[in-house]
């Protein structure tokens, strides 16, 4: 079985209009992949930037996969939420990125988007907060039903991931 290590950090986020942000992340893989060690999903702390405008999380990611095939290469999906002083959470963006397939250290900048509703929902979001969310979050990393959505851009999430591959050459895969 070929093995893939994904080790790194969710560094932080820039470009969001809100301040106190946290991120829920997960890694989705196909059926041929098995997670040997590590946690597949998690949530960062809430960070309020005091210096500058980037929200830093430095959230560690350490995953060890074994796979029998290349289909379903891991995809990292993110949801960025903001939290106000009353403790209410509001969605700021969804995003996804494939885990890089070449070994080495990679700096990823994952762009995000958030669903827009009609003018009523947009007005309500501006005054009261909240806003539409996806019912099934797998739309974030699949393209199947995207055409139904009307979205606006969110900010960018920055990640630094190192990918270590093992035994791929044994199966004739060049990396």
């Amino acid at each position, binding site marked *: 079985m070929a093995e893939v*290590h994904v*080790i*790194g*950090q969710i560094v*932080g986020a820039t470009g969001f209009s809100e301040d*106190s942000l*946290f991120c*829920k992340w997960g890694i989705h893989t196909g059926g041929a992949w098995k997670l*040997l*060690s*590590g*946690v597949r999903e*998690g*949530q*960062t*702390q*809430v*960070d*309020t*930037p*005091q*210096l*500058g405008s980037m*929200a*830093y999380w*430095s*959230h*560690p*990611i*350490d995953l*060890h996969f074994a796979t029998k095939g290349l289909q379903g290469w891991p995809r990292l999906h993110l949801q960025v939420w903001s*939290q106000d*002083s009353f*403790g209410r959470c509001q969605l700021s963006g969804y995003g996804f990125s494939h885990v890089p397939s070449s070994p*080495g*250290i990679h700096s990823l900048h994952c762009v995000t988007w958030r669903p827009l509703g009609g003018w009523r929902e947009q007005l309500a979001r501006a005054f009261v907060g909240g806003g539409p969310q996806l019912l099934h979050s797998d739309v974030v990393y699949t393209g199947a039903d995207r055409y139904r959505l009307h979205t606006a851009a969110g900010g960018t999430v920055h990640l630094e991931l*190192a990918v*270590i591959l*093992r*035994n791929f050459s044994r199966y004739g895969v060049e990396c």
Partner: protein
Amino acid sequence: MATANPTVFLVMVNGQVESAQFPEFDDLYCKYCFVYGQDWAPTSGLEEGISQITSKSADVQHNLVWNFPIDITFKSTNPFGWPQIVISVYGPDVFGNDVVRGYGAVHVPFTPGRHKRTIPMFVPESTSKLQKLTSWFMGRRPEYTDPKLIAQGEGREVTLFQLSTHNYSISRLWAFSLAVFSAWNTLLHPTIKLAGSLKFQLKSYLLQSF
């Protein structure tokens, strides 16, 4: 090199904690320690260290320079649990107590060669204004009893909870030294704020053996 047998590999890290920028604080010292998985073991070098206390430079940049050496070699059979260096910075508050000014963690470099990293430093703070006031007054800030927790991914999320209903153990998350204040707060909501940034250089060598 990679055969069917499990191979042991060594990772040698040497470098320094070079300097820090903390605009609001002065007279700081730092402590470092390493957090690693079960398949890793240090074979030589120091796993922990405490630096000298340093004051800000007089020039425009206001650097706090430590130039504090790091030298360690790890032995492992598995990249899972790749070591992270956890740095905690402490300094005096207005009353002279030693309080934490920031925690930061980063993985030791994955590739051989020279690496320079600047890491953000976090300090936990509560959003309850009453607790902020009492912690400033008493010199007892929220801090991690075990700084190694900052290198872990689980349990970093913070939930709003009320003492009467939700027992989502803050003690499981961070073990804050908040025994004094728990009676005062019905809403305990620690967040993390970015306090400064730390620059350090690491050279790492990846050695294959046998």
